[in-house]
């Protein structure tokens, strides 16, 4: 087969005068020759940094037990990641920080008194099934931490829903179990003061109680540019609007939007799980749909579902739609003609 490229190839084969001054070889690559300074580990490590305020808050409220859970989850996640990469003969990349994030986020969704063996099991499932079975970083469909948490929820339904009061409000006697603000709302119709929710002075999972600490971390990430503002805004916004509608209809029966935003895992989910790059859509429209539908789902589960908290399942549910959203919400190509009439 005659090919025009052959002529060019002949031209190229003519002798070349090599190199620059002093016979030094020049480096030849394809453009662009200029890249920004971002990198995957840098992003991941910044996210870890952004999680510090919430981690500190949980250690303050729940004591060293919280710290232990963080250490266990991070360690187990890293070990699982290492084992999988080693076994699959892939480059060992446990220092890219992604497994650390999974470990921290998983720990944050657990009750402070959660047993160590459960934390290890959840971490192994999160990284093993939630991430490595899909092919590792970038290929997983579901947020690994949430998948680990969902697995634990199904595996240890009692342990994952047994809460303790924070140290700061614990009565002198051993308070064995406590109810989360959302459970109080759902089963007893009691509302927790918003100020307590805001600071985190309530029972709940490690990382989700202190709205202010999460907000600090989230805004720091936003400032660094690693959070797509559409996602937390869409998620929290739709939660507020949707729960606000019910609140306006019957304020005695439904809690106000502020309660919804600050109670349970809404803040943590909105800032650190909805925004997970791998498992959120890549297109503008897709991101809006993802976040807004997720927020509505969370409120629906909270108000009408069997469970007090809906953030985890709402995010996992929407994760499943991400490939579909990416496919069908492609941005308009610049100058695209509306209808291909020909």
């Amino acid at each position, binding site marked *: 087969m005659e090919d025009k490229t052959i002529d060019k190839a002949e031209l190229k084969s003519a002798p070349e005068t090599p190199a620059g001054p002093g016979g030094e070889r020049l480096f030849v690559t394809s453009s662009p020759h200029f890249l920004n300074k971002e990198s995957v580990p840098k992003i991941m490590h910044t996210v870890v940094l952004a999680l510090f305020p919430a981690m500190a808050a949980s250690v303050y409220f729940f004591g060293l037990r919280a710290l232990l859970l963080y250490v266990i989850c991070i360690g187990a996640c890293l070990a699982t990641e290492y084992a999988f990469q080693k076994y699959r003969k892939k480059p060992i990349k446990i220092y890219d920080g992604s497994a650390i994030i999974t470990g921290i986020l998983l720990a944050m969704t657990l009750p402070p008194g959660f047993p160590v063996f459960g934390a290890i*099991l959840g971490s192994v499932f999160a990284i093993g099934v939630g991430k490595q079975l899909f092919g590792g970083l970038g290929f997983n469909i579901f947020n690994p931490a949430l998948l680990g948490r969902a697995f634990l929820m*199904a595996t*240890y*339904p009692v342990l994952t829903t047994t809460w303790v009061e924070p140290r700061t409000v614990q009565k002198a006697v051993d308070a064995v179990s406590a109810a989360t603000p959302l459970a109080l709302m759902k089963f007893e119709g009691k509302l927790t003061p918003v100020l307590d929710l805001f600071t985190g002075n309530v029972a709940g999972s490690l990382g989700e109680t202190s709205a202010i600490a999460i907000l600090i971390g989230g805004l720091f990430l936003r400032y660094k540019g690693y959070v797509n503002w559409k996602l937390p805004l869409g998620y929290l916004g739709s939660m507020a609007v949707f729960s606000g509608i019910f609140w306006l209809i019957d304020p005695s029966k439904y809690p106000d939007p502020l309660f919804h935003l600050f109670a349970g895992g809404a803040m943590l989910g909105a800032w650190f799980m909805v925004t997970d790059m791998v498992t959120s859509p890549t297109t503008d429209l897709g991101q809006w749909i993802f976040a807004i539908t997720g927020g509505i789902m969370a409120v629906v589960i909270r108000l009408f579902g069997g469970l007090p908290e809906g953030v985890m399942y709402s995010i996992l549910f929407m994760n499943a739609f991400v490939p579909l959203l990416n496919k069908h919400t492609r941005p308009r190509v610049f100058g695209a003609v509306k209808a291909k009439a020909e």
Partner: protein
Amino acid sequence: MAENNHTLWYEFKKGLWQDIPPFRLVLGTCPTLAVTNSVINGFAMGMATLFVLLGSNIIISAIRKYVAPQVRIAAYVVIIALLVTVADMFLAAFFPPVSKALGPYVPLIVVNCIILGRAEAYAQKNPVLPSIMDALGIGIGFTLSLMTMGLIREILGFGSIFNIKLLPPSLFEPWIVMILPAGAFLVFGALIALVNYLSSRKAAEADKA
């Protein structure tokens, strides 16, 4: 009818590994996922299926030359339905707790693809004796598969084997998920992966040799 030259032993053993129904053929997955939360349930379901399979293979193989091809499926389904109903009644009469645990899945054997699949693919083309061996092999393979699923799920989900607690509750917190359908899918997936991995390794070794 083409009759092959395989030995009876081959007809039996192929169901135990090579064509083991849920993992290699991915047939009969409904009971595999639904009733395997304990070894006993898996065993009972497997035995019920084995009974129906054996009966249908014998009858169909015996009458294969007399049934008009146009109505064979209808005739087979009637025979299978008969056997399933008998099995269901037998369990309800003699083992009411097992019958209750298996729920609607015993009547559902009627639509288990293994039964009609073996009837179509094997019994209607082969004499009675090989058909018996085929049914025994496939049926026992199926039973073993269900029991394996049941074993894993019972150990993890209840912390017991054959309803005998293995460890005191203080040492082992059962994985509730394993009793739920989600656990069935997890174990099923893991076992398919394992069986595929083992056979691919076997094939690789055979290639080397």
